[in-house]
């Protein structure tokens, strides 16, 4: 998993509340056997005019030129509600988003973001409104998201602080996914296995 420390990047606005995981990645794309290849289907039903995804919908904000290459998404309440599918963060990440800023997130989605190297930032609704007001008229507007300091800063000098669970923050700063975190204890696992082989040798298949 890629670490997240501090990034300055183009921010895109998605002015909708309750964006659910079905909108993020519709269920017809879940039958894949891979964990990659979801980025092109991100927001499929909004993003394309046809089922096969060849005709971009010119009215969908993320299709506008000004947002090409955006890595930060600023959006509204309850982002990521719906099913627990991990395909949603996979799709967002593959599309290029590393940070999502919203007033609130659905619980499972919020946790799944950390598992996959995306930083979800909660700011209050008035702060989000200020971000919308600053970014909207300023094409190319870049935000700085600093996980170390837990701050979002804007070109006009606004600075908003946020907080995340220290345990999750630590993992993201180091780029450790659950597996990475556990593997820090590799030594203990090996040691445990050695002792266990002595006390319960019958558990081991040769």
């Amino acid at each position, binding site marked *: 998993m890629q670490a997240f420390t501090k990034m300055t990047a183009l921010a895109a606005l998605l002015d909708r509340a309750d964006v659910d995981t079905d909108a993020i990645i519709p269920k017809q794309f879940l039958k894949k056997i891979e964990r990659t290849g979801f980025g092109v289907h991100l927001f499929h039903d909004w993003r394309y005019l046809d089922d096969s995804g060849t005709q971009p919908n010119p009215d969908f904000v993320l299709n506008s030129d000004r947002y090409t290459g955006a890595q930060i998404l600023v959006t509204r309440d309850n982002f990521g509600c719906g099913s627990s599918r991990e395909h949603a963060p996979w799709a967002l990440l593959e599309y290029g988003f590393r940070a999502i800023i919203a007033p609130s997130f659905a619980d499972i989605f919020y946790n799944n973001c950390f598992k996959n190297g995306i930083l979800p930032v909660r700011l209050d609704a008035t702060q989000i409104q200020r971000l919308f007001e600053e970014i909207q008229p300023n094409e190319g507007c870049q935000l700085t998201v600093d996980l170390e300091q837990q701050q979002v800063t804007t070109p006009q000098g606004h600075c908003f602080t946020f907080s995340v669970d220290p345990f999750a923050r630590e993992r993201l700063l180091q780029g450790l996914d659950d597996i990475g975190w*556990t593997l820090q204890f590799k030594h203990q696992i090996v040691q445990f296995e050695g002792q266990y082989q002595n006390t*319960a040798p019958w558990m081991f298949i040769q």
Partner: protein
Amino acid sequence: MGKTMFEKIWDAHVVHEQDGNAILYIDRHLVHEVTSPQAFEGLRIAERPLRKPNATYAVPDHNVPTIDQDKPIQDPISAKQIETLRQNCKDFGVTLFDLGDIRQGIVHVVAPEQGLTLPGSTIVCGDSHTSTHGAFGALAFGIGTSEVEHVLATQTLQQQKAKSMLVQVDGPLSDQITPKDIVLAIIGKIGTSGGAGYVIEYAGEAIRDMSIEGRMTLCNMTIEAGARAGLIAPDEKTFTYLRDRPYTPKGELFEQAVGSWRLLASDPDAKFDTVVEFNTKDILPQVTWGTNPGMVTDINGKVPDPEKAENPKDQQAIKAALEYMGLIPNTPIQEIQIDRVFIGSCTNSRIEDLRAAAAVAKGQKVSTSVNAIVVPGSGQVKEQAEGEGLDIIFKEAGFEWREPGCSMCLAMNDDKLKPGERCASTSNRNFEGRQGKGGRTHLVSPEMAAVAAITGHFTDARSFEKH
């Protein structure tokens, strides 16, 4: 103070603990074709090796056809998932019980049969009914795809400790009720979320009386009560079952293991967070009428009347369920006509289940209005049943005799209900659409399913002559 069996197994597997999060060592990891592809891919992307190939065993089951298994699979997605499983097993050195191998079958039937399930072990699989293995005194539970990858990479899992519940089932196990009836009655009483946050240990006379197969049925459905896992203390029956299975320890090592397994049972002074008591004398053959396993009554019961519900929420739930199920309030259960019968799934597809159903079917004919299939849980169960002539009994009575797999338990292959069709099923979930879009599922024991096949409606299996 003494320890519960759960605590003993837990404590023996904690590698590290921090802020209530434990890294738990996993003894056996079972893998099937549907929930594993992304996990293996994750390993490849991160360039991580499979930590312990000889603790990892794979079998295709969810998707496989139950007719012509030797021919190429028609459905392209199923074919691709099974092919991917083969490739992953090859690339990572995992033992695979492939189609055509007599050891293939439903993962929760196969692992105990092969002796992979051992008392005191931790077992995981990307499938919620992994709880089945608790019948041997193993701590066994289902996990998600990210966790599958975590176990593949580390042979451990991050876990928070569950609470413990004791379900005491007193009274003897007569031939009048089956383990399926007992577990449905338990879920009916404690509810589908009654076990949430708990590991349930079963104890009492009825549990001691139960065969290993019956205990598996009980632990299998524990997940339907919302619990993490079910557990039953191993005893002489367990040891006899396990002796000389392909993957069990042999000779002196087996005796040594048994010595340790005898100490697994909860200590007499162990404290459970919750205790619930049942008595077999209060339990009759069960039939579900709704769209979750807790919506259940007995064979002398009636379809409930939403008007008599205790609160508006229940009333709403009953109404919605009856609408989906196409049932009229107050209809006696015995008057419900069925179209299909499914005898199979990891709940009830072992040899004992097939024997029980065959004892009912012998010399009888399936009702002309019913289509009935029997799907053995594994190639070995199938072979054993055929050795005992059960296939002949079923076929002569008009049941279809199929090849092993999950089949109509979740209808991922061609075995599906059509919209509106009503099925007496020995599986574990009666959710909307579980056996096919618009299909109506009634969960019952193998005996009750077989009797219903013959009479065309739910009938008390106790009054039915068996051979």
